[in-house]
C-alpha cells in the first residue's frame, strides 16, 4: 500500500517539500541545542519543563482521542465512522511519534536515552509513559494498516486484529492517564496535585483530537475529494462539544477547590495564570483567550444550526483546537512551575530556537501524517472504483 504515497500531484510534492524544509531548519537548530545544551531554550532553574514537554502533553491527548472513533466503530458497530476511523488511528500514530520526539529534544543527555531501559525503574512514571506510548504506537500502526489492507483486498481483517482493537481502547485511556500521573503525583506542585488532572486531560484530549480530525477531514475533502462524511463529522462535533464542556467543568471544579479553600499553594498558580502574580503576567491574555475560545466553541457546537453549518463548524473546531492548545500547551506546564517551591516568581517565555525546534518536530509529524493519509485516501478511492 505504501506505493500510494509515491504518486501525487504537484501540490502534494510541494507540501511534502515544504514540510521537509521546515523540519530540516528545526533539525539544524536542534544540532545547535545538542552542542550548547538546553540553555538555548527559555527554561530556567525554576521552570525546568517548558514548551517541549507541554507539546508532548498536548499531543498525547490528540493521540488518545482516536479512541473516540475506535470505540463507537468497533465496539458499538457505529457504521457512520467507517470512513473516518482509520484517519483517527493514523493521526494517533503521527501524534505519538511527535510525543516521542518532544521527549527526546527535551533531554539534557539524549544519547543516554536507553538508560531508561538498561535501568528500568517501575517507581518512575516516566518508565510507564515510555511503555504505554510505545505500545500505543505499535497498536495503532498494526490495527490501522491491517484494517486498511483488508478493506483494499475486500476481505475481513485478520482474526487476531480484533483483540488488539479491544486492547487499544483502554490503552488509549492509559496513555493520557499516565501522562497526567507524571505531574499529579508530585508533592510540592500544588497546581498539578489534583485527582481531577487525569480526567481533565482526557476531556480536553477528546475535544482537541476530534476537533482537529474534523478540520483535517475538510482539508482532505478539499484536496483529494475523499469525504469522510457529513454525518461522521456531525457526530464528532457533538463529541467535541461535550468533551469541551467536561473540560470546562473539571476546570471550574479545580478553580472552586483552590479559590474557596484559599490554600495559597493551590491558588497562587491560578492567580498567576489568570491575573498575574507580583507583576508577572505574560500568560494572562492567553489564558483568558483560551477560556473565551472554548466557551464560544461550546455555544456554536451545541446550537444545531451552527453545528450543521460548515463554516461555523470549521471555526468552532479551530477555536477548540487553539483553546485547548493554549490551556495545555502553554499554561498547564509553566503554570505548575510558577511560583516555584520557594514561592518566588520567575516567569518562563519560550526562546526563538526553542520555538523553531518545536515547529520542526511538528513538521515531521505532519509529514508522516500526510504520507499516511495519502495512503488512506488512495486506498479508499481505489475501493470506491475511482483509483
Amino acid at each position, binding site marked *: 500500500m505504501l506505493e500510494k504515497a509515491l504518486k501525487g500531484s504537484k501540490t502534494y510534492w510541494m507540501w511534502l517539500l515544504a514540510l521537509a524544509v521546515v523540519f530540516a531548519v528545526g533539525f539544524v537548530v536542534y544540532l545547535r541545542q545538542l552542542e550548547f545544551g538546553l*540553555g538555548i531554550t527559555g527554561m530556567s532553574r525554576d521552570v525546568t519543563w517548558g514548551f517541549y514537554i507541554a507539546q508532548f502533553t498536548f499531543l498525547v491527548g490528540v493521540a488518545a482521542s482516536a479512541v473516540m472513533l475506535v470505540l463507537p466503530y468497533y465496539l458499538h458497530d457505529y457504521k457512520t465512522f467507517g470512513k473516518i476511523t482509520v484517519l483517527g488511528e493514523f493521526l494517533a500514530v503521527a501524534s505519538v511519534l511527535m510525543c516521542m520526539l518532544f521527549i527526546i529534544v527535551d533531554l539534557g543527555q539524549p544519547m543516554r536515552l536507553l538508560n531508561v531501559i538498561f535501568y528500568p525503574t517501575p517507581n518512575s512514571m516516566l518508565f510507564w509513559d515510555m511503555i504505554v506510548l510505545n505500545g500505543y504506537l505499535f497498536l495503532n500502526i498494526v490495527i490501522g494498516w491491517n484494517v486498511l489492507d483488508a478493506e483494499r483486498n475486500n476481505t475481513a481483517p485478520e482474526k487476531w486484529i480484533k483483540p488488539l482493537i479491544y486492547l487499544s481502547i483502554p490503552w488509549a485511556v492509559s496513555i493520557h492517564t499516565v501522562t497526567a500521573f507524571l505531574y499529579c503525583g508530585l508533592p510540592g506542585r500544588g497546581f498539578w496535585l489534583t485527582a481531577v488532572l487525569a480526567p481533565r486531560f482526557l476531556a480536553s484530549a477528546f475535544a482537541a483530537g476530534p476537533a482537529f480530525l474534523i478540520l483535517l477531514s475538510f482539508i482532505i475533502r478539499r484536496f483529494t475529494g475523499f469525504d469522510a462524511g457529513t454525518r461522521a463529522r456531525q457526530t464528532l462535533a457533538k463529541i467535541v462539544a461535550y468533551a469541551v464542556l467536561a473540560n470546562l467543568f473539571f476546570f471550574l471544579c479545580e478553580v472552586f477547590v483552590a479559590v474557596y479553600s484559599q490554600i*495559597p499553594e493551590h491558588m497562587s498558580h491560578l492567580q498567576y495564570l489568570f491575573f498575574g502574580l507580583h507583576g508577572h503576567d505574560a500568560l494572562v491574555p492567553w489564558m483568558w483567550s483560551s477560556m473565551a475560545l472554548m466557551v464560544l466553541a461550546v455555544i456554536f457546537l451545541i446550537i444545531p444550526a451552527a453545528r450543521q453549518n460548515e463554516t461555523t463548524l470549521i471555526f468552532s473546531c479551530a477555536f477548540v483546537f487553539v483553546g485547548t492548545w493554549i490551556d495545555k500547551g502553554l499554561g498547564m506546564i509553566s503554570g505548575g512551575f510558577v511560583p516555584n517551591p520557594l514561592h518566588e516568581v520567575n516567569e518562563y517565555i519560550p526562546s526563538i530556537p526553542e520555538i523553531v525546534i518545536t515547529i520542526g518536530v511538528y513538521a515531521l509529524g505532519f509529514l508522516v501524517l500526510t504520507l499516511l493519509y495519502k495512503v488512506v485516501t488512495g486506498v479508499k478511492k481505489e475501493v470506491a472504483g475511482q483509483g
Partner: protein
Amino acid sequence: MENSRRRFLKTAGFSILGVGAGSMLIGLAPGPSEAAGPAAETKPVFVDRPDAKHARRWGMVIDTRGLDARTCRKMEEACHSIHNVPDHIGKFGNKNHEIKWIWDTEFKHAFPGQEAEFLSDRLENAPVPVLCNHCDNPPCVRACPTRATFKREKDGIVLMDFHRCIGCRFCMAACPFGARSFNFRDPRPAIEDENPEFPTRMKGVVEKCNFCAERLAVGKMPACVEASGGALTFGDLNDPDSDIRKLLADEYAIRRKPNLGTFPSVFYIV
C-alpha cells in the same frame, strides 16, 4: 541521524515490553528506597577510607540564631568552590542557568505555608540557608526513571550519578524544595578555580548538594558545617547519643514542608 534515533527508539520500545514486565516483578515488591539500593551497592560512589565517618542516617541542624549574612556567604563559597559549582551569574550574568547547592533565602521563602505573620525583625530578615534535605522518603528518587539519583542505603544520603542521568529533570519537578539545579550549558567555563579532587559536571545533567559524601569518606565534616562557626551541627539522626540528637532533644526545631511526608533530614532552630 534523527531517523536512526527514531528507529532506535522504536526497537527500544518493543524490547522494553519484555524488560519492563520482568523488572516489574522485581522492582515493585520493595519500596522506592530499596529499589534504589542496587545502584548504590554495585558501584560505591566514594570509597571509604579507614578514618571515614559513619552514620545510619546523616542529618543536619541549622541554628539560624547563630547565623549572619557573612557566615552564610562563607558556607556557600566553601561548598561551591570545593564542588566545582559554576558561577553562571557572575560569569555570564544569566540567572536562568544558575546552579546552587546551598544558598540563603528569607524565612518566608524557606518556609512558605509556615510563615508567621508578626515575625520578629530578626527572623524576618535573617538569612536562612537552604540545601537538599536528604529526605528519608525522597520524591526525587521516586521520580527518576534511571535511578541516577538514589538514597544511599548505608547512611541515607541522596546522591546523584552524573554519568547515568539523562537530564529529563523529572527529579527537579518532584523536589518540593527547589534544591536541584540543571546544567543548561557546559559548566566548566564558569568555574573559577577548579578543584581537581571533585569531578566537574557536563552539560545536560542535574546536580545538587551531596552532604559532602566525598569528605565524610575521608573523615571530614561537610564543608558548610566547617565554615558555619558552630551554627550547623551534623551527625547521626539514628544515634540517640549523638550531638545532633541531644540538640534536637533540647531545642524545638522545625523542618521545611513537613506536611508533604518527605521527612527531611535537615532541621532548623529558629
